[in-house]
C-alpha cells in the first residue's frame, strides 16, 4: 500500500504525443478511477504505471520510489486486464498462485495465501477447475485473485468489467468496492463507463485527448464540473447546454429568456449555460425555455422528455406517473443555484 505520484508524465508513440504532462497524486488506500472517451489516454497512463510502456518524460513514483526504469515485476503492482488474461491451461489454483512464483515464501505459506484469497473471493470450491469451466464473472474473480495474492502496493484495473453483462457488472462493481473497503489497498481503475466511475471512486480523474480535465470526488465532478466536457461526460442523460450572454442581474438566453443568478457576473460576456435534466422541471414558476415534447422515454419512476426548443433538443425529467403528452408544449425552468455557467469560448466554468 502506498502513494502513487505522477509528475509531468508524457508519452509519445513514434512522433505523436498522446499524454501531455499528467500530474496526479494518489493517496495511500485511495480508489481512483480514470474515465474518459476512447483514445483519451487513460489506458496508456495505466500501462505506464504498470511498466508495460516506457515513459517518454516525467516520472512515476510508487511508495516514494521512482519506478520509471524498473521492470513491471519490480514495481510492486498487480494488474487486472479487460480480457481477464487468466491462463486457460492452468487450474484456478495455479492461476492464482502464478503471481507468487517469484516470491521466496515457503510453499506452505504460498498455499495459505492462495486459500485465503480464494476464500475472500468465494472461490474455494473452484480452485481445481480450469478457466473453461468457469463463468465470465468467476474468471474475472480469478484474475482479481491473482492480483490480490501478491499483496501489491498498487492495484491496476484496466476496464475489468466491460466484458461482463449488465447484471454481472453491477454485482462485480459492488464486490470490487467491498474488496477495497476490506483490503484498503490503493487502486487505480480505468473505465469508459461513467456510472462505474461515479459508483466506485473515491476520486475520479476525467481525461480527454491526453489531458486531465478534472480531478475530484464523484460529487465534485457532478455538481461542480470544471468545464463543459466534464459537465457533459458525467451524468446520464447528459447535461443540456444553452447559449447566452451575461447581463445586468443575470444571464439572457439566446432564446430570449432571462435567468437571475445568485452571484452576478460582469455583463456582456458570451456564456454557455449547463442544465442537468433533473434540474429542469416542467411548469416551473420562472420558465426559462419552452417547446413541444418530441419524444418520451418512460423509465418507471420518472420519464425523460425530449423537448424541441429554439436552442435545440433539451432533455428534462418529468414525473413518472403523469408525464406530459407528446406534442404538448411544456415550459421548463430551473433554480438559479442549479445552473452551471461556462465561458462560451474556453468551456471553463465561471463563478
Amino acid at each position: 500500500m502506498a502513494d502513487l505520484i505522477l509528475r509531468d508524465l508524457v508519452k509519445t508513440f513514434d512522433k505523436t504525443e498522446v499524454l501531455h504532462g499528467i500530474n496526479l497524486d494518489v493517496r495511500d488506500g485511495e480508489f481512483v478511477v480514470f474515465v474518459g472517451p476512447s483514445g483519451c489516454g487513460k489506458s496508456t497512463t495505466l500501462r505506464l504505471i504498470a511498466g508495460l510502456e516506457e515513459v517518454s518524460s516525467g516520472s512515476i513514483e510508487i511508495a516514494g520510489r521512482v519506478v520509471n526504469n524498473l521492470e513491471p515485476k519490480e514495481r510492486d503492482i498487480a494488474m487486472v486486464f479487460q480480457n481477464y488474461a487468466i491462463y486457460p491451461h492452468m487450474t484456478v489454483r495455479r492461476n492464482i498462485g502464478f503471481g507468487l512464483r517469484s516470491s521466496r515464501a515457503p510453499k506452505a505459506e504460498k498455499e495459505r495465501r492462495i486459500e485465503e484469497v480464494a476464500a475472500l473471493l468465494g472461490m474455494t470450491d473452484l480452485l481445481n477447475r480450469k478457466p473453461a469451466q468457469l463463468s465470465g464473472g468467476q474468471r474475472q474473480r480469478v484474475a482479481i485473485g491473482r492480483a490480490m495474492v501478491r499483496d501489491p502496493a498498487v492495484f491496476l484495473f484496466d476496464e475489468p468489467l466491460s466484458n461482463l453483462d449488465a447484471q454481472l457488472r453491477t454485482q462485480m462493481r459492488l464486490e470490487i468496492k467491498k474488496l477495497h473497503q476490506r483490503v484498503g489497498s490503493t487502486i487505480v481503475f480505468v473505465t469508459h463507463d461513467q456510472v462505474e466511475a461515479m459508483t466506485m471512486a473515491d476520486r475520479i480523474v476525467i481525461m480527454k485527448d491526453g489531458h486531465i480535465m478534472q480531478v475530484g470526488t464523484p460529487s465534485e465532478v457532478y455538481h461542480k464540473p470544471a468545464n463543459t466536457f466534464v459537465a457533459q461526460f458525467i451524468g446520464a442523460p447528459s447535461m443540456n447546454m444553452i447559449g447566452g450572454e451575461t447581463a445586468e442581474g443575470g444571464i439572457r438566453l439566446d432564446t430570449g429568456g432571462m435567468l437571475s443568478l445568485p452571484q452576478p457576473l460582469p455583463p456582456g460576456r458570451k456564456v454557455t449555460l449547463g442544465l442537468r435534466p433533473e434540474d429542469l422541471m416542467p411548469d416551473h414558476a420562472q420558465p426559462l425555455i419552452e417547446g413541444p415534447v418530441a419524444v418520451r422515454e418512460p423509465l418507471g419512476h420518472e420519464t425523460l422528455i425530449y423537448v424541441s426548443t429554439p436552442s435545440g433538443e433539451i432533455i428534462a425529467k418529468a414525473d413518472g406517473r403523469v408525464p406530459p403528452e407528446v406534442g404538448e408544449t411544456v415550459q421548463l425552468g430551473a433554480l438559479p443555484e442549479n445552473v452551471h455557467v461556462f465561458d462560451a469560448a474556453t468551456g471553463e466554468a465561471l463563478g
Partner: protein
Amino acid sequence: MAATDEIRATSDSLLTTEGPRRPANAGQLTRWTLLFLGGVLMVMPIAYMISTSLKWPHEVYNLKLIPEEPTIENYTYVLEDGRFYWWFVNSLIIATITTLSNVFFDSLVGYTLCKFRFPGRYIVFIAILSTLMIPTEMLVIPWYLMSQQFGWLDTYWGIMFPGLMTAFGTFLMKQFFETVPDDFIEAARIDGLNELQIWWTVAMPLVRPALAALAIFVFLGNWTAFIWPLIVTNSVEMYTLPVGLSSFGDEADVAWELIMTGAAISTLPTLVVFLIFQRFIIRGVVMAGLKG
C-alpha cells in the same frame, strides 16, 4: 464434474442418434460421388502397397488387387534382413531429433518475430519467408559442398542439418502466436516472469495445436525425405528408410515386393505419431482464459 459428464454424454447421444432421414437430393449425390472417388483415389496406392507386399515376385506385375497366392515371405525376409533395422533406427533418430528441434526453434523464432518490436524485424521475417521459394533440389548442391568441406558427409548431422529449423515452421508458429492475446504476455510480465519463461510457460501451451501440427509435418517430412539423404549418405548403414528401401533389388531388377513390404512397415511409426498428435489438433486452440 458429474453434471458436466452427464451433459457431455447427453450431447454425444444427441450427435449419434439418427434423425428422420430425408431423401438425398442431386447436390448431395454429386457431393458423395466426388468424395467417394476422392476416397478411392487416396486409398488405392495404399491398397496396392499392401497387396504387392503380399505377392510373390512373379506376380508383382499382375495388377490384381488380391494376390493369387498371398504370402508373408516378404515380411519375413525384410524383417530378418539386418539392414532394415539400421535404416528404421536411422530414420527414427533423424525424424525425432529434427521434430524436437523444429518445435523448439521455429516457435522460439516465430514468437520473437510476433511479439517483440525491434528494428529490422520485418526484414528478418521477409528474409525467412523468401527462403520458402527456393526448392530443395536447388539447395542440394550448396548443402553437399558444405557437408563435404565440413566433413559432414555420411553422418547423422549431415542428414539432419538442413531441416533442423524451417522457414515454413517459423512462419506457421508466428501466425499462431498472433492468436495469443498480448494480455496474457503482459499479465505474465507483471507476474514477474522473464521473457523466456513467458514463452515457455504461457505462450507455448496456448499454441499446442500448432505445435502438434508442426510436429506431424516435420516428422512425416523427414521420415519420407529421399533426395537429400540419398545424396549425403554413402554407406548402407547410414541410409534412411526411403533410401534403403529403394536399394532393394539389383541393377537388373527392382524388388517391388520388398520395397512395398518395407514401405508398409515404415508407415507404422507415422501412424503412431499422427494418432498421438491429432488429438491436440482436433481439440483446437483453446482460448478459454479470455472472454471470447
